């Protein structure tokens, strides 16, 4: 690691004020710190958002859920109210990384990084969530803009994510055997306005909605409805761990498992 100045922000406004030049926000650091350790990232300053009170907490009220950006995966995984309102999100958070990662990593940090193999982007896209920042509100559809890409502007800070509680939701992930990131993960959600299915880990341009999956489960929200679905391998990643064809297959298999989980 290169020498770096560490700043602990007291508030969102304080963090924004401290962000100058090549400074990086730190919100758990589960990607940034390893990259700094192997000298692939070299910010001169890091501004830690983890201790900002206004970014903490998980609120479940009537129809909606709001998760503070600095909520750790462990907090999301074990929040009683959330586990009742939308257990699929808690399940997802409980299967990120390992216990160490889950107690350091945050939802805000994860989505701001938008790793194409991260779990949360699939959930937020499928839940039609809203990403709140210190400047504005952005829909998940517009927030995720490709590999490691987001709609965030320089210095903009994710403060929370919110979504309406779905009637049904489920997540299934096939972990990369080495890293345990999603080799393919599918999040499905159903509510009054219809169904949404989002795929992480497989697309060559990051998280995306699968129209094939959505078309099938819109007719009948059951795993069997996906039996005859064909997922094209086009635009899917192909690497050492999995071919595009294998990922296409996993999208279907994980979608079936996600739907089965959503139906309990």
């Amino acid at each position, binding site marked *: 690691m290169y020498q770096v100045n560490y700043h602990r922000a007291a508030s969102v406004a304080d963090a924004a004020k401290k962000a100058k030049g090549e400074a990086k926000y730190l919100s758990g650091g589960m990607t940034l710190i390893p990259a700094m350790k192997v000298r692939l990232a070299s910010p001169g300053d890091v501004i830690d958002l983890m201790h900002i009170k206004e970014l903490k907490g998980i609120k479940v009220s009537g129809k909606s859920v709001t998760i503070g950006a600095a909520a750790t995966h462990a907090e999301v995984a074990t929040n009683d109210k959330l586990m009742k309102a939308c257990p699929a999100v808690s399940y997802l958070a409980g299967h990120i990384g390992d216990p160490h990662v889950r107690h350091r990593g945050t939802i805000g940090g994860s989505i701001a990084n938008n790793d194409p193999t991260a779990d949360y982007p699939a959930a937020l896209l499928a839940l039609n969530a809203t990403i709140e920042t210190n400047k504005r509100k952005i829909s998940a559809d517009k927030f995720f803009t490709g590999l490691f890409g987001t709609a965030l502007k320089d210095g903009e800070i994710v403060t929370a994510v919110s979504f309406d509680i779905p009637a049904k939701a489920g997540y299934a992930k096939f972990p990369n055997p080495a890293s345990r990131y999603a080799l393919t993960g599918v999040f499905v959600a159903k509510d009054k306005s219809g169904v949404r299915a989002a795929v992480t880990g497989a697309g060559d341009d990051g998280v995306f909605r699968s129209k094939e999956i959505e078309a099938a489960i819109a007719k009948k929200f059951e795993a069997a409805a996906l039996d005859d679905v064909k997922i094209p391998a086009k635009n899917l990643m192909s690497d050492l*761990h999995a071919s595009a064809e*294998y990922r296409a297959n996993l999208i279907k298999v994980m979608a079936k498992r996600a739907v089965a989980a959503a139906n309990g």
Partner: protein
Amino acid sequence: MGIEGIGARVARKEDKRFITGAGRYVDDMVVPGMKHAAFVRSPYAHADIKKIDVKKASKMPGVIAVLTGKELKADGIGNLICGWMIHSKDGSPMKMGAWSPLAVDRVRYVGDAVVIVVADTKGQARDAAEAVNVDYKERDAVTDPVAALKSGAPQLHPEAANNLIFDWALGDQAATDAAIKRAAHVTKMKIVNNRLVPNAMEPRAALGHYDKAEDHYTCWTTSQNPHLARLVMSAFYNVAPENKLRVIAPDVGGGFGSKIYIYPEEIVCCWASKRAGVPVKWVADRTESFLTDAHGRDHVTEVQMAFDADKKIVALKVDTIANLGAYMSLFSSCVPTYLYATLLSGQYVIPAIHCNVRTVYTNTSPVDAYRGAGRPEATFLLERVIETAARELKVSPAELRRRNFIKGFPYQTPVIMNYDAGDYEASLNAAMKTADYTGFEKRRAEAKKRGRLRGIGMSTYIEACGLAPSAAVGSLGAGVGLWESAEVRVNAVGTIEILTGSHSHGQGHETTFAQVASGRFGIPIEQVSIVHGDTDKVQMGMGTYGSRSGAVGMSAIVKALDKIEAKAKKIAAHLLEADEADIVIEDGALKVAGTDKNVPWFQMALAAYTAHNLPSGMEPGLKETSFYDPSNFTFPAGCYICEVEIDPDTGVTEIVQFVAADDFGNIINPMIVEGQVHGGITQGIGQALLEGCHYDPETGQLITASYNDYTMPRATDVPYFQLSTSNTPCPSNPLGIKGCGEAGAIGSPPAVINAVTDAIGNNKLTMPATPSKVWAAIRAAAKH
């Protein structure tokens, strides 16, 4: 604890310090004035070095020295060597390309060391290393061993035309070819043994300390054999004469073979310490470990196994290309030859065997011994081909093996080895019974109902441990002897120190070696200490690898204990005024048999040192040494049965049962032996299903250079192991030990792959059998 002898399941003495974080590793060592090193390494797989500019780096904060290969050469430091001479079929010696500890005019793999930077802190050394400007001219690279032999392939060393290091053969080619021609059935396969990264928990490290006053060097290093390190650094690398070089290998966190070799870094740290005038420490980070630890395996083989009409094997023909990487590592040449081809008879009577091996240079990390070393490669191909033959011949794999087992001992194979003892049917029967082999089809049908593909696979392996005797290995090209030394010091109050040339880096020697003395003399195990890993304490030794420390290391201890016992009895007989022949050692005392006359052990020891009343002419003291040179290899063997269930939707393999029935000869500590088998099988499962080292074929970059891409086995990847032993004592050493350190890694990969291929009905599957590959193989089988 207390008196704990042979066979006791005693908890490991050393674990207290390991599990409380009190172990002392090289990185824990601190010497006054110590500074830190970083290496500038090649980012290219193959390039010429045009110019090295260290000016900017030398002026960086904290920098003490920036040193290059040119300066190293000017000081007379030698090239690295391979210590086992192999001759090609045409009689020519192996083609050893020059390997300078710091590259001078050319780099040959990503990670090749070029410059050392010494600075006040590790961070400063790294900053300065980045400021060293090396002007490279890139060359084409080749990483695949088969491609490296093709005409037009990039050439690595001027000494080795076509990248060929040697073209060696063992066995009777004419007899083998003739038998194949006459055979009723021939099974042919192409077998790839995947390259592995060793991944010891502790990365390699070195601390070189030059003492100007004494003109003397001390080198702390992560070594499995510190004496060998001293010998090689003195005799070949010209670091310092032996009497001016002390090598210490303190606690070492795993080796698996990768810490046998003397690497550039320890040589350079010692040399740089004199040059820079400060002690120099280097500790590899995990990326350096991936890039520069000697890798394992990497064979491509064509094999034919021929049978007569009675399904008896008549011949085995093997043609192997082995990748040795960019340079010849210390024992790289013996792994794909004498540790490989000599095991190709397996547990079977095979009248004719011929094995041809071509070893090649590629632009990859050097390849050398890794847990099993040659024997896993031999076992994998043999056990895959016999299982495949059974499927082709429509006979039970167990029956085909049984029909071909060697049943009489000693047995001379056509490939050098003389098996001294064994009972292969006993292991096979034990494993089949535990695994309920005959009930398998019922389980397969039940799994099918659940939508799962269930398969069973077997492996009946043999291996050779305790490489020996010295004269024999010398005649085969070894540059060293393969004996072991021991010194037993009985102190004045009867406590014991055992100095051994073996080195413990996870094997539990501090416990098992102490058990041998504790049980023999009836003294508490706490009163027996094991001293190892320091050339100033132990005079000479050959270290630990090849499952040799029980069979060879402990045999040396037994020989020294014999001498101690003889002298102790003389002293006791004198004190008790009895005949020496009547003295027995029981319960911590030397007794006159059949009487109540006795002298406690500690009193006898005290008498040896007070010397007030010793037999006439006897020297005072009680200390004995022994050098033990075995008369033969030892031959552990066994039968492994693996049962898997595969999810056809994802290709995920779950090992639902793993049975191991081993013959390790006599066992000192069953718990430690079980631990060794658990670890070995886990590494074998890792090779079969998870681990694979991949270089980009175009650029020669290591793709699997971190745990994000290189899959290590996790606890959830392995089942509860069902182990048993049915032991035939080894006739050639005093304790009857065969060795157990590598068996698991040798026997398990073919059992796993035989099970997976059985489950999916497609025999075309390479290791690691990842879910993606298994899924594709299931689809290919369905299309057929």
